């Protein structure tokens, strides 16, 4: 297997806070990969670094063999990296289906003239996109909510909608920031099934998660961050037995 995402010596600090220091990480294509660590460890910052929200202090990030650090966020998205946010960032006042349709923007082609004139070609594209969007909603288990405002959906449904929106861009890498936060046990189980189904469609998944049970059962490899440093990486069994990890968690119970 080849590494789809490779992160090399990435550091990022905010004033005095060193959120990431010299993090290396390599994610194989086709895997489900977890990033864990106590609160404030730098996990979300790592996602933000990957999607180009922050400029790195040092280090490089490569996706599919090409450097992506320094590129604007929208270009990175178009290369095939989609994500969800720890604190949902749906387009709250747009319908669920519109949210998913916007997710397709990374893939849709169309000229300004098409948009201005509403050409038959544009309308045909639009219809097809709508079909696909419905399919994505079905895929994440959201039938019949298409026309509702995103903000009016239940919390669990909003989390799923965010995943559907991310999938709509047909990414090769999907970053999920705490997808199970706030979900009940049943919803968590459904989420695990959904993540596997996503992987089975050929999408590599990296997720940040605090629920150890979920992480251990779902993921093939795990990296542990603490105070901005990667303190361990390995298969679930190795991580469970790693003294440094145990200490990080005992030192700062999460």
């Amino acid at each position, binding site marked *: 297997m080849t590494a789809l995402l490779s992160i090399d010596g990435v550091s990022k600090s905010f004033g005095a806070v060193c959120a990431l220091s010299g993090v290396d990480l390599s994610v194989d294509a086709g895997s489900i990969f977890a990033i864990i660590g106590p609160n404030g460890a730098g996990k979300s910052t790592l996602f933000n670094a990957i999607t180009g929200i922050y400029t790195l202090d040092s280090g490089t990030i490569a996706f599919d063999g090409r450097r992506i650090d320094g590129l604007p966020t929208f270009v990175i998205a178009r290369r095939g990296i989609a994500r969800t946010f*720890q604190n949902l960032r749906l387009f709250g006042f747009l319908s669920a289906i519109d949210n998913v349709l916007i997710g397709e923007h990374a893939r849709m082609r169309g000229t300004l003239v098409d948009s201005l004139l509403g050409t038959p070609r544009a309308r045909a594209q639009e219809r097809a996109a709508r079909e696909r969007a419905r399919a994505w909603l079905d895929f994440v288990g959201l039938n019949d909510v298409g026309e509702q405002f995103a903000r009016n959906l239940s919390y669990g449904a909003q989390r799923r909608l965010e995943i559907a929106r991310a999938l709509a861009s047909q990414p090769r890498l999907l970053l999920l920031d705490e997808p199970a936060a706030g979900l009940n046990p049943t919803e968590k189980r459904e989420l695990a099934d959904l993540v596997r189904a996503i992987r089975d469609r050929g999408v590599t998944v990296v997720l940040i998660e605090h629920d150890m049970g979920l992480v251990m059962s779902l993921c093939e490899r795990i990296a542990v961050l603490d105070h901005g440093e990667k303190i361990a990486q390995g298969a679930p069994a190795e991580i469970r037995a790693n003294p440094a990890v145990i200490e990080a968690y005992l030192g700062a119970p999460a």
Partner: protein
Amino acid sequence: MHEFLAQLVNGISVGAIYALIALGYTMVYGIVELINFAHGDVYTFGSFVALTVLTALGVSGEVHGIALVIDVCLAILAAAVVCGVLGIAIERFAYRRLRNAPRLAPLITAIGVSFILENVMQLWQGPAQVSFPAVFANPSLALGPIAVTVKQLVVVLLAVGAMLALQYIVHNTRLGMAMRATAQDRDAASLVGIDVNRAIALAFLLGGALAGLAGFVSGVYYQSAWFFNGFSAGLKAFTAAVLGGIGNIAGAMLGGFLIGIIESFATWKLGGQWSNVTVFAILVIVLVVRPSGLLGTKPIVKV
């Protein structure tokens, strides 16, 4: 050289007025992140209040001795109080309801308030320029090679005095500290028991009062007032606040003086008709190149 110094002095005096107005923009922006578009008109309102008081006191030209002190104090007091209260009223009735609305909404409302104030003043004082009594005798004093008029001196002294008073209030009184805390983080401030509404009202009160003072000062300085003065003076003062770093009190003062000086030199070198264009061009350039201004800090993006 001579002309250069004269323009510099001129710019500093005009800049003092901009600085006083800019303080109101910066305090309000610092605490509620709103460009209080009506602030320039509050300043004009101050001119008219001062004019009304002076007229009632029978002042129509220069005044001397103790009468000068009394008249000036009363005019300033009235302008500052009325404008401070006007500021609070505007916040209470026009902006407070929209504190959590999309950012567009309060700004549009502010423009509306500005239009209303301008028209009210037009109804009250007419559409033409109104003349303002000289109040001070205005001989020119020689400070070494620099010629300074009494009025220029008065303008700058009053402005600097007010700014020192403001610094004291903001840094050394309980309410002032509540105001700064609210500007830092409104939610945290309300959690530790600060009355956020009062702190915000204070920002509008102080800003309004300073604008009132500026209104008096500019009336005396230009010997005229016009209902529409606030529009361009307000824009220039806002530019000053942005140049200094919006939300930053010292920055507003610095920016005010700088804009006054720049405008003065632009008028000298390019001609009066280009002075507005110069100032607005500076506004655009600063916002594009360094939106945090000279003394401001860069805001951080939270995800």
